Every structure is written in structure tokens, then in C-alpha cells.
């Protein structure tokens, strides 16, 4: 009787043990079946901290948001998307190190970024050598001129913004302009383009002034402009100091039209300049004035979707710069979905993208054009009651 009981206990013990074993095995097998496919790794390098962080932060937020959304929808053809973000601090050396790490350690399939033109130019030789597609979020034309096989960019061209302004001036019989530009990279690049393209449009530059990014008062430069016979002023900068120019100009009682560059495309700048900003004119991507864009416009849906998602997730206004990152990563995702994890095929795919509707415009890449956008990507905007609206 006692023996039987003991045997019973042993059997009970063994079966209990087997039960656990089976369970563990089963869960392992199940997990094996459930195990997701190998993730697709994409690198992202942005100036998240440092002086250019107003570029890098919305860009980082945007790619993180896309990563989450794509993975919630089951990834790319079943493969989860993994975006590895590195901070360049806006510094060339750090950007180069980050790219090397992404290529050698993480073995990414493509890289989006960097945020700044300078850092982009610094990493180009490395990605060219390693043969990794790079889709930059920086604007300088030198990035894609001459065309490098592995390098693309999503922002519009500076020269197209200049063309857009000059065309508007031709239409409104303005031929003598004063330019006032920031001394940062964006400002001096704009100054070069403004001076280069002016003769083509029959425009004379009668004053050429500059200001530093931390300057506190620009009335001296504007007084000089006031003394000339300029019919309009073009203020080309990307830093907050440009709002002081807008203010000072109105304070000096200057009534000639003021044109800004696409670097004015941050509603904060309009807020800083307050009433003085009313009526100024600038070319910009359509993201900023999506509310006043006609329903029929092909970009309307993409822009509204991006704006709503970004603003509800991060509680801050969308910026053009985040939009550049959106375009860059969506291009990579499009390529991965179509051709899979093969760097050369991704490159060829992007080079032949035609009619991709992004936030910056509608992209038509070709082996000769790695920007994909023309001047039609810009819309002339104005400030009305403190808001950006499409100029009619």
C-alpha cells in the first residue's frame, strides 16, 4: 500500500516534469514559428543636439514616428524596420564617425541624413567608398552637383527658391533690389545664388548687406538700404535673427515689399516679428500652408496626414525639416518594399523613382538628377494674421 503510494508519487512527479518540459519545448517551437523575419536596418544621422538641433530634432522625431507606424502595421514585407539614430551634433568629425559605425558595426542598408550641408559633404566620400545609399536632408547644391551615384537629397534647391522670387519680381515690375543675408552657410550660399541669377532676370542688386547670426540690431544695414533706390528687399537667412530684420525694417518706416527665403519657414519667426511680418512674401514647401492648399492638390493628403500625426504625437508644430526626413525615409522604405535588402538595387530603385509624392514636393529622380524636385516644389507664401497662407 505504502509502496504503491510512493510509486504513485514518483509517477506524478515525472509526469509533472514532462509536462513542464513539453510546455517549454512547445513554447520554443511556437516562438520559432512566430519569430519575426530579420529586421531591415536603416541608419539615420542628424544634428539632434548642438547649434543645428532645430533641424535634427524634428528629423529624429519624424523617423522614430515612421518606424513605430511601419512596425505596428507589420513592417516591410514582414520584416520589421529598425532605424538606428546617431547624433552628429552638427559636427563634421562626429558625422564621419557615426557613418563609419553605422556601416561597419550596424551594417545598415541605407542612411538618411545628415541634417547640415557641411556634415553631408564630409560623409560623402565614405558612403561612396562603402557603396551605401545616402539620402541627405541638407539643401546645398554641392551635395548632388556633380551627381554622385550613391548620394541623393530631399530638400528643394536654393537656386529654385531664388528663381521663384525673381520670377515673381519680373511679373510685378520690380527690377532694383537690395539683398541682406545672414553670414551662416545658408545665408552666404543664398547670397551667391541671388547674385548669380540676377542678370538672367534683368534684376540689379543695388545694395548687398550682411548680418551675423547673433546680431541684435540691423537698423544700420537697413538705413543704408533705405538710402538707395531699391524697390524691394530680399532677406536671406535661416536663423532667428532674420526676424529682427523684419521688425527693424518696419520700424524704420520702410514700405517697399520684403521677400524672405524658404529659411523663414518656421511659424516661430513670424510670431517673433509680430505685426511687422504681415504681408511679406517668401517661397516655401507646401507643408507650412497645408490648410490653405486646395483640396485637389496632389500633395494635400500626404501633407495633412504627416502634419496631423506629427503634431498629435509630439505636441509641437511640424517643420519643413522634419518633412525632409519623412521624404528620405519613405523613399528608402519604398525601395526596400520593392527590391528587398540589396544596397545596389535600392540605389537603382531610388534613382528611377518617378512621381513619389512627398512633403517637399513630387519627386522625379533620374541618373542625372539626384534632387528630384524643381521650382514647382515651391509655393509663394505670405503671412496673414500671424499665419502662413498661400499667396494669391
Amino acid at each position, binding site marked *: 500500500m505504502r509502496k504503491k503510494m510512493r510509486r504513485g508519487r514518483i509517477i506524478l512527479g515525472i509526469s509533472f516534469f514532462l509536462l513542464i518540459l513539453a510546455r517549454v519545448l512547445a513554447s520554443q517551437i511556437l516562438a520559432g514559428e512566430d519569430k519575426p523575419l530579420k529586421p531591415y536596418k536603416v541608419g539615420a544621422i542628424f544634428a539632434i543636439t548642438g547649434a543645428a538641433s532645430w533641424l535634427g530634432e524634428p528629423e529624429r522625431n519624424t523617423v522614430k514616428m515612421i518606424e513605430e507606424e511601419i512596425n505596428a502595421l507589420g513592417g516591410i514585407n514582414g520584416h520589421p524596420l529598425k532605424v538606428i539614430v546617431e547624433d552628429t551634433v552638427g559636427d563634421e568629425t562626429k558625422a564621419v564617425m557615426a557613418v563609419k559605425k553605422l556601416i561597419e558595426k550596424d551594417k545598415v542598408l541605407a542612411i538618411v541624413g545628415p541634417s547640415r550641408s557641411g556634415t553631408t559633404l564630409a560623409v560623402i566620400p565614405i558612403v561612396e567608398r562603402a557603396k551605401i545609399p545616402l539620402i541627405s536632408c541638407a539643401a546645398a547644391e554641392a551635395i548632388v552637383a556633380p551627381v554622385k551615384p550613391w548620394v541623393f537629397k530631399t530638400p528643394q534647391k536654393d537656386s529654385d527658391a531664388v528663381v521663384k522670387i525673381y520670377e515673381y519680381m519680373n511679373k510685378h515690375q520690380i527690377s532694383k533690389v537690395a539683398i541682406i543675408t545672414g553670414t551662416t552657410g545658408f545665408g552666404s550660399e543664398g547670397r551667391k545664388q541671388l547674385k548669380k541669377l540676377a542678370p538672367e532676370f534683368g534684376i540689379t542688386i543695388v545694395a548687398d548687406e*550682411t548680418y551675423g547670426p547673433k546680431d*541684435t540690431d540691423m*537698423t544700420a544695414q537697413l538705413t543704408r538700404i533705405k538710402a538707395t533706390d531699391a524697390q524691394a528687399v530680399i532677406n536671406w537667412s535661416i536663423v532667428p535673427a532674420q526676424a529682427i530684420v523684419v521688425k527693424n525694417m518696419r520700424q524704420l518706416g520702410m514700405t517697399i515689399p520684403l521677400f524672405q527665403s524658404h529659411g523663414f519657414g518656421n511659424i516661430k519667426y513670424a510670431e517673433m516679428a509680430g505685426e511687422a511680418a504681415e504681408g511679406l512674401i517668401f517661397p516655401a514647401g507646401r507643408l507650412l500652408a497645408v490648410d490653405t492648399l486646395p483640396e485637389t492638390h496632389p500633395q494635400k493628403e500626404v501633407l495633412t496626414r504627416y502634419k496631423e500625426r506629427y503634431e498629435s504625437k509630439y505636441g509641437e508644430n511640424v517643420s519643413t525639416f522634419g518633412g525632409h526626413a519623412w521624404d528620405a525615409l519613405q523613399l528608402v522604405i519604398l525601395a526596400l518594399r520593392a527590391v528587398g535588402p540589396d544596397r545596389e538595387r535600392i540605389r537603382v530603385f531610388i534613382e528611377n523613382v518617378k512621381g513619389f509624392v512627398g512633403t517637399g514636393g513630387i519627386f522625379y529622380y533620374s541618373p542625372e538628377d539626384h534632387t528630384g524636385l524643381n521650382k514647382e516644389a515651391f509655393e509663394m507664401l505670405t503671412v496673414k494674421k500671424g499665419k502662413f497662407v498661400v499667396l494669391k
Partner: protein
Amino acid sequence: MSLGNQLLQYLFTGITIGSIYGMVALGFNIIYNSTGIINLAQGEFVMLGGMITIFLTTVVKLPLFLSFFLSVLLVTLIGAIFERLAIHPLKSPSVITLIIITIAGSILFKGGAMFLWGKETFTLPSFSGEKPIFVLGAIILPQTLWILGIMGGVVLLLIFFFSFTRAGKAMKACAVNRRAANLVGINVKLMVLFSFALSAAIGAVAGIIITPIALMDYDRGTMLAIKGFCAAVLGGLGSNAGAVIAGFLIGITESLGAGFISSGYKDAIALVVLLAVLFFRPGGILGNKEHT
């Protein structure tokens, strides 16, 4: 616009910019006067003054007048705490150690401000409207008058404080000779605390009154500190009247340089003037030659 009008406009612009530099320079002087060190975190006190006022008026929604005083008080406190935590614990610090500590403080304040308020640039409404005042065809902003008035008041108060009060004289004595001051019974460490609090307060005032015209962000302090430091050196370190005069001088040279030569060279022109003056008068315009 006639040449005369232009010249007048450049002068007004120079006075506006110069008064900003002068205010920052005053803060440098106070700490220098009592400790003999250059507080490289001075620009950050200016930035904190502006940023805290912006925070109080836009987020807490206090009236500007109240925010002004509250912000000065808070920055004064920050200055005092900074001294207690970073400067005070050192037993017998060398001047260079102290200066390096203030650099660290500057980086810390800047980082803190960046985390608290982000990297955006903010502004404040002008104290009494934005309508410019026309004087002989040139314009001057009401805010510039506020800056000039407040700066004048601060300078008078400082002169009174350092020349006629016990605490002020004691602070001056510490700068001349710490040891001797200690021997005659002055609590040197307490005076150092006072000087940090006072210069933080003046920095904060400067930050608040310039924000409506110059805008403010977490990174604004360094550039202001450099220009303010130039003004302090040019005026003769320690001389408050010299700091104000030098501030105007740098501001006006910058603005005339931008107007008549080229706006690209205006910083260079101002710095060449600084070097030239220091070459002939190493002690600065109103400085004591012994100090150099």
C-alpha cells in the same frame, strides 16, 4: 535719406547696441571689483534673466512688471547658490581656478536652460509699445530709452553703493588686497557671495530689458558676454563709468562701420578699435594703470 539723417540713425543704432554691451560689462566689473576674477558665466546670468521673465509672463502668465522683479530675484538666488556650491568650498583658490569654474558654470547654466526651455528663440513685448520715435528724420525705439534709463539708474546705484556704503567699500577692499581686508575684519567670503549675487542681479536686469529688441534663446549669453567683456576691458576693468562709455563706443563703431564701410566687417572694426585703444592705453579708457 540725407547723409546727416543716416549718420544720426547710425548713432542711434550704435547707442542701442552699445547700451546692451554696457549693461553686460557692468556685471563683469562687480565681481572683478570684489574678487579680482572674471566671471565668464556673466552672459548666462543675462540669458537666465531674459528666459525666466519670458517663462513667467507666457507660461505662468504673471504681469510683466511682477515677472521683472521675480526674475531678478530668482537669478540673484541662482548667482548666490552658484557661489556657495562652486566658489565657496575652495580653500585658497588661484584666480585661474576660479575663472575655469565660472566657465563650467556657464556651460551648466546653458545646458540647463536648453533642457528647460528648448532651443527656440523667444521674445518679450516692449515695455511701452513698439511705435518708433522720430528725431530729425531718424528713429529711436521706446525700448532703447528704457534701456538707457535703467542703465543710468543702475550705474548711479552702483557708484553710490561702492563709494558710500560699508558693504560696498568692504567689497572694494577685498579686491585690492584680500589678506589685508581679512586682517581688518572684513568677511571676505561673504563679500564674494554678495558680489556674485549682485552681478547676477544686474545681469538679469540687462537680460530682461534687452529681450524685446534683441530676442533671447539659451545660447545667447556667450556672444553677449564676449562683447560685454570687450566693453569692460576697453573701459578699464573695474570702472563702471568706463564700462558704459566703452559700451557706447563699441556699439557706435560697429554701427558706423556697418553703415559706411561694410556690414560684413562690423565685428572686426569694433575689435580693431579695442586693440588699438589697449595698445595705447593698456589700462583701458578710465582704467587704473596699476591694474594691468
